[in-house]
């Protein structure tokens, strides 16, 4: 037993959680004694310090810091025996693991778990909204439901699921054996369930209820449940930043020989751009939530108007992250769709360089539009004009991408299977979301519809019809590579069509009721909106049920689907040139990249070649890409 408590793992983690709680108690007792406060033990402060300290103790117990502590303490370093690499059974997914392929799956599976929780919460909301008046929940609980819904789906689903997919395929795509910092990668992942469990467990004390935006001073005067968001976001944010740094270093330093920047697949470009956004922007949301924490717990009064605080400051800091976050939640999807559309149309990406540059243009412009979330906030009037122009102009690089995808489809040989259906569904729905986005840049119009259901419609067209459709597309596309099994195509198509139809019936009418004057974030509404809300609620239940088809398909195919070949899609990118699933260190021989990633239709074209027993395969010869293993 003593051995188990000393070795990294769940036993030690449990012990350390207890130590963390004790540490928090000791800290507040000492501090309160020092200030002469009575009583010496204050349960609320104990809880707050525990929320900060226990996750760190937990990660330590699990073994996330072991190697670094060992090294820092000056003991002789142990050569890495790769015992933390690769998965041997399902248990490997519940331990610290440094294999990017294991971590990728570790990211994706819990992300979807949080998506189902967030979706279930949304259905509860729609049940309340099916009729005007209050039926199921009171005002505060309802506010809690949409706050948890948004927080989970943004911070624990869309952002991490993209990080997970990229974690799996990105090192393979650039011909690297792993990520640049495998231990940091493991730590990044394990901070996520911490954040997710914290946000979900806010239901135990009354969920945080000031929206995912947590505007001060509402958030600084809420019940204690608010802190489960404020502190949870810190862990999700730290995880994002560490992962982004890891991607940047991996992409810059670990590309295979011959993989120049302009031979990288667009998914790699997309994650490069996303990581730049994350590294620059995410510290701002961390700051905004630390301000809220200090206001709430220690009376710093950053945002208390009565104490010389500045209320609008919160929104500026918050949106300086949260607008770029919209692109953090979209650019990786652009990458996924670029891969799928090229492979499934059997054509090179149209205008590859412009596709890459438009990503970078979005990164730069993405930092110049944040105040369009504040057009009616009462900030200085003049700021609105340049922000309107930049907000409209950011549609230009996005438009370049959409038109280039269309041109890629043109005269191709289209294989319209499940990943392609979701990619095309994304194209149409994201175009609609982009168009309503341009409408929302137009100041006079947004003065009317800001904070109305029109916004709810717009953001779901962008994040559901946009991001989630690309996530589904990516999961189906790489499912054979990740699991070594094929998914069921019929169920995949069923999933797409039910999702697509129910999604539109759910969210399209929201444009209309928003323009007609229904505000967002309300549990009750005027009688005139009753019919539309009932239709929306019914459609949203169908949308919720459609995910069951997806879950059944994924689970049953992973357990008993037919074996997947190495390259079922006849794709050129490197991840398809190794077995499914790939060998433990990805490549038995280091690939050499000799051409672009999307040379479909070019006779004899190949993206990478593998040195075979020292003799290089001549780039011109293979018509079918050579396969390692």
């Amino acid at each position, binding site marked *: 037993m003593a051995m188990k408590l000393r070795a990294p793992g769940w036993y030690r983690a449990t012990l350390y959680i207890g130590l963390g709680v004790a540490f928090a108690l000791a800290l507040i007792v000492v501090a309160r004694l020092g200030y002469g406060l009575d009583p010496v033990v204050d349960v609320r402060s104990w809880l707050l310090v525990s929320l900060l300290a226990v996750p760190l103790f937990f990660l330590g117990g699990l073994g996330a810091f072991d190697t670094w502590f060992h090294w820092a303490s000056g003991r002789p370093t142990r050569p890495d025996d790769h015992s933390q690499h690769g998965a041997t059974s399902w248990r490997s997914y519940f331990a610290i693991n440094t294999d990017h392929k294991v971590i990728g799956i570790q990211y994706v599976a819990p992300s979807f778990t949080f998506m189902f929780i967030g979706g279930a919460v949304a259905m509860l909301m729609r049940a309340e909204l099916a009729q005007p008046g209050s039926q199921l929940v009171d005002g505060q609980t309802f506010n809690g439901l949409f706050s948890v819904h948004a927080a989970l789906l943004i911070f624990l689903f869309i952002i991490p699921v993209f990080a997970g997919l990229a974690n799996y395929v990105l090192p393979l795509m650039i011909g690297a054996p792993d990520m640049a910092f495998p231990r940091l990668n493991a730590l990044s992942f394990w901070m996520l369930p911490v954040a997710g469990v914290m946000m979900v467990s806010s239901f135990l004390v009354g969920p945080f209820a000031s929206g995912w935006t947590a505007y001060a001073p509402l958030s600084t005067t809420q019940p204690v449940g608010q802190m489960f968001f404020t502190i949870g976001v810190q862990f999700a944010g730290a995880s994002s930043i560490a992962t982004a740094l890891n991607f940047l270093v991996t992409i810059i330093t670990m590309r295979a020989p011959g993989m120049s920047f302009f031979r990288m697949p667009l998914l790699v470009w997309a994650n490069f751009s996303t990581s730049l956004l994350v590294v620059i922007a995410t510290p701002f949301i961390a700051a905004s939530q630390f301000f809220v924490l200090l206001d709430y717990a220690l009376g710093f009064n950053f945002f208390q108007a009565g104490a010389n605080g500045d209320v609008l400051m919160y929104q500026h800091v918050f949106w300086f992250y949260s607008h770029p976050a919209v692109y953090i939640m979209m650019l990786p999807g652009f990458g996924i769709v670029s891969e799928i559309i090229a492979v499934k149309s059997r054509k090179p990406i149209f205008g*590859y*360089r412009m596709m890459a540059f438009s990503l970078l243009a979005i990164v730069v412009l993405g930092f110049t539009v944040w105040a369009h979330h504040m057009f009616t906030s009462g900030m200085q009037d003049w700021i609105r004009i340049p922000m309107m122009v930049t907000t409209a102009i950011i549609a230009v690089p996005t438009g*370049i991408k959409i038109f280039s995808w269309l041109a890629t489809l043109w005269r191709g040989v289209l294989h319209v299977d499940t990943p392609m259906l979701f990619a095309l569904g994304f194209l149409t729905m994201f175009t609609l979301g982009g168009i309503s986005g341009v409408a929302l840049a137009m*100041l006079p119009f947004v*003065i009317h519809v800001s904070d109305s259901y029109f916004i709810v419609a717009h953001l779901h067209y962008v994040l559901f019809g946009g991001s989630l459709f690309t996530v589904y597309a990516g999961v189906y596309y790489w499912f054979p590579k990740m699991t070594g099994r094929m998914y069921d195509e019929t169920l995949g198509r069923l999933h797409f069509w039910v999702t697509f139809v129910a999604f539109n019936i759910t969210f399209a009418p929201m444009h209309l009721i928003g323009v007609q004057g229904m505000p967002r974030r309300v549990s009750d509404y005027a009688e005139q909106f009753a019919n539309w809300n009932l239709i929306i609620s019914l459609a949203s239940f169908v949308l919720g049920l459609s995910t069951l088809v997806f879950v059944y398909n994924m689970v049953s195919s992973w357990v008993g689907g037919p074996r997947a070949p190495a390259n079922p899609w006849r794709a050129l990118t490197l991840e398809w040139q190794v077995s499914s699933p790939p060998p433990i260190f990805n490549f038995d021989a280091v690939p050499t990249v000799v051409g672009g990633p999307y040379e479909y239709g070019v006779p004899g074209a190949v993206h990478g070649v593998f040195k075979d027993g020292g003799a290089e395969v001549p780039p011109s010869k293979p018509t079918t890409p050579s396969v390692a293993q």
Partner: protein
Amino acid sequence: MAQESRGGGRRPLMQMAVIAVVASVLGVALGLVIDWFPSQASTQASTIDTLYDVIIIVSVPIFFLVTGVIGFCVWRFRVRPGEEDEDGPPIHGNTKLEIVWTTVPAIMLVALCTYAFVALRDIEEAQADEQRIQVIAQQYDWSFEYPNPMGGEPIRTEELYLVKDEPVLFDITSLDVIHSFWVPDFRMKRDAVPGLTTQLRVTPDRLGTYPIVCAELCGLGHAFMRQNANVLSRRDFDAWMAEQAEGAGGAGAPASEDEEEGGEAAAQESDG
């Protein structure tokens, strides 16, 4: 080559164009026929509604262009039996085309922004003889303060009363958290921010009673923070104002203020 038989030349482009134009015309017609807005009860409303119609006319064809191309490609270029192992033609790009679809949208967007800017100037323009009304927001109701025509304490009410065709300048504040003052029938909205006085201009031009909605999440009673704005003729307004001025200093407004403070204290208690 197989690609030739799958539709080179101009024919597919023509077919595509016809489908996209027909769909766009129908889509724009539908977009304009839908009764999007609540009633137009201010001079600002018609400016904003016209802008929205322009946005629909510009953007619906773009949507149908994109969906039209996708639908057409799926119909026309879908893999047919015997083509499973074929590839499309290796077209890597077309600089002219790429310049066109970068510059044309950019020009359209700048034009749209210019129009929006002019419309914004129009709806926010200061008018002569604006009536100033204080809007005070707190969890979870609105109150309105008018200067007292007889001098003395301002007149405080729970419902908003305005005069048809006379411009109003609202000075908006909040006593606790952020709220947002929105009258959908006027199309205008501005946040009420603690510590700031924000301003909003409206010229109501239609008699009637219209809902006032809080548009910024302000706590557990946010959904129920709805009151009414009444647009009266000058004569009715004067009669109402005289009545208020007589009653000022009496019961009316202060009683409801006590009630609000009770509500606020209760809300703070629940904060623990």
